[in-house]
């Protein structure tokens, strides 16, 4: 097993792909935290805890759930909206949950508007601008999600979570696989259950800004 751990950055001018450092993806029914394979139960708890601790917990829904291109996508979108509403209900004053879409994958030139969207080619801009310290990617194609996760780990201290519909993401600090409506709802339920039990790190200035 690799000694490498997938931790919040800023890690490096060009951080390695976690897979190249020996981090392996979870098998069905498993998840990973920091590159260590774990049970899904533990991952729900840790993801909820990270969200409730964050100053700006943020959901990044991608094109696979932003467009009603099939029935499943529409149901997932509804579940994500529920997750966001739950998050808003469960945070304490001073915390600022956000929902920022990744509508497509084209680089945005001459300048992205980081208040309204995130882009896989320069996701750090949105993280920095909004001082996001914990985020979850849902409904982003795996290749673009990995691009984003690696760039975020390289240049920011944001804690990254992936709710992947396929095999998961080593480049996130925490990753689920085989995402479904049920799994999104279960994450929302866990956040609700842990409401008030986790102290937010509002005093900390460690909020996604690169050093």
């Amino acid at each position, binding site marked *: 097993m690799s000694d490498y751990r997938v931790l919040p950055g800023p890690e490096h001018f060009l951080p390695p792909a976690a897979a*190249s450092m020996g981090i392996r*993806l979870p098998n069905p029914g498993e998840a990973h935290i920091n590159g260590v394979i774990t049970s899904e139960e533990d991952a729900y708890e840790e993801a909820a805890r990270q969200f409730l601790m964050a100053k700006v917990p943020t959901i990044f829904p991608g094109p696979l759930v932003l467009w009603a291109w099939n029935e499943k996508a529409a149901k997932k979108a509804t579940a994500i909206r529920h997750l966001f509403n739950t998050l808003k209900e469960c945070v304490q004053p001073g915390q600022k949950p956000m929902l920022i879409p990744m509508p497509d*994958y084209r680089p945005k030139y001459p300048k992205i508007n980081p208040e309204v969207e995130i882009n896989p080619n320069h996701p750090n801009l949105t993280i920095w601008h909004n001082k996001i310290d914990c985020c979850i990617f849902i409904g982003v194609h795996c290749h673009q999600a990995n*691009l984003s996760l690696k760039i975020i780990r390289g240049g920011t201290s944001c804690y990254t979570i992936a709710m992947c519909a396929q095999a998961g993401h080593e480049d996130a600090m925490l990753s689920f696989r085989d995402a479904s409506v049920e799994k999104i709802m279960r994450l929302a339920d866990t956040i609700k259950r842990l409401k008030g039990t986790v102290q937010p790190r509002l005093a900390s200035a460690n909020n996604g800004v690169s050093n």
Partner: protein
Amino acid sequence: MAEIKSIIGTQNKKGQTYTDTWKMMNEAPRTPSFFTGSEVIKEALRRASCDVMIAYPITPQSEAAALIGELFAEGYIGDYFRGESEFAVMSQCAGSAFGGARVFTTTAGPGTMRAMENFPMWAGARLPIQMIVTCRGINSPLSIQPDTLEIAYLLNTGMLVWHAETAQDFFDWILKGYMVSEEPDVHLPLALCCDGFFVTHTKDVVNLTPADMCLPPYDPYRSPVPCMDMECPPVRMMRDPFVMKSNYISYATHASWQQEIWAAVERSRKHSIHWLNGLIDTENTDADIVIVASGTAVSQGREAIRLLEDEGVRCGLVKVKTLRPWPEEEIREATKNAKHIFVPEFNVTGWLAKEIRATVPNHQRVHAGPHVCGGMTMPPEIIVSEIKTALGMKTFSLAGRGS
């Protein structure tokens, strides 16, 4: 996956049953058949639920391409045509794969080299195209004979690269190859290589799966990138390529993109081990002498080991099945006891020996040879001779006529 599972057990238009691939490859009855490697490629493709096959004639792959034309005429392949050149073929393969098709092509030697620009593009675009490479000489003066130098050029393209020893490997790996390369965490092209003529034009007994069973179809919506549909969401990733920009962000994105391709090669390791029963095969690796080889050099090595046993010299064997992913840990483990590691190859540069030297500790143990190239055969006796010379045993020149 639910969509794929629901199609298992149903029939295609040819009456073949879409079958769980693991069951088809490991549990279904096999029929021994006496075929050339080219015929085996055709038989594998008959069972591969392939949407598009495109090729351009070049020896020694032309026969396989022509035979697949017969499959198209019989209705087993969705579309089939000859491109204008190898470069055109590989570009057309990309277009087909972008559109969500399961794609197959065959090439060889100078054709591989001519098309080379496309291979990193395939990998970068995460297109799980399968390309058969029936290796032959590539340099001037041209040779159509077996020579594996072109594999060296494929190793850094970001493609998966496997090297088949026998026609049986070919049959099984064509079908299993799609299962590995189409995994969403991999989703890379596969160059499935063999030594031209030795495999393609030699008849061998090959155990075939039932012709009325076929692979489940490719599901392009399990891709890690959007299936290219320029009008419907989730789409339009192709506009404004960052390659056209010159700034830190575009460079960092491109760097991250390249890393992701090689991360996907790493991820293929798990799936390749599952489907190929390991990235290497080993025999007697507790011996002081180990031969490490890929392709038909494995067969020659095996025969050399038999000859050496007659003389009381015990040798082990490592058959390298996948070159990408590279079985680094497996080779280290398999050669840990070896005092001498011999790497017979059918090429002039010894690219496999270089890879092994970069992998094992105490690389002085690695003897890069014997080499033959340009179409020469590799009699097992020259491997024996190389080993005996290194051990200080008496040997004699095979090419000599005098005393």
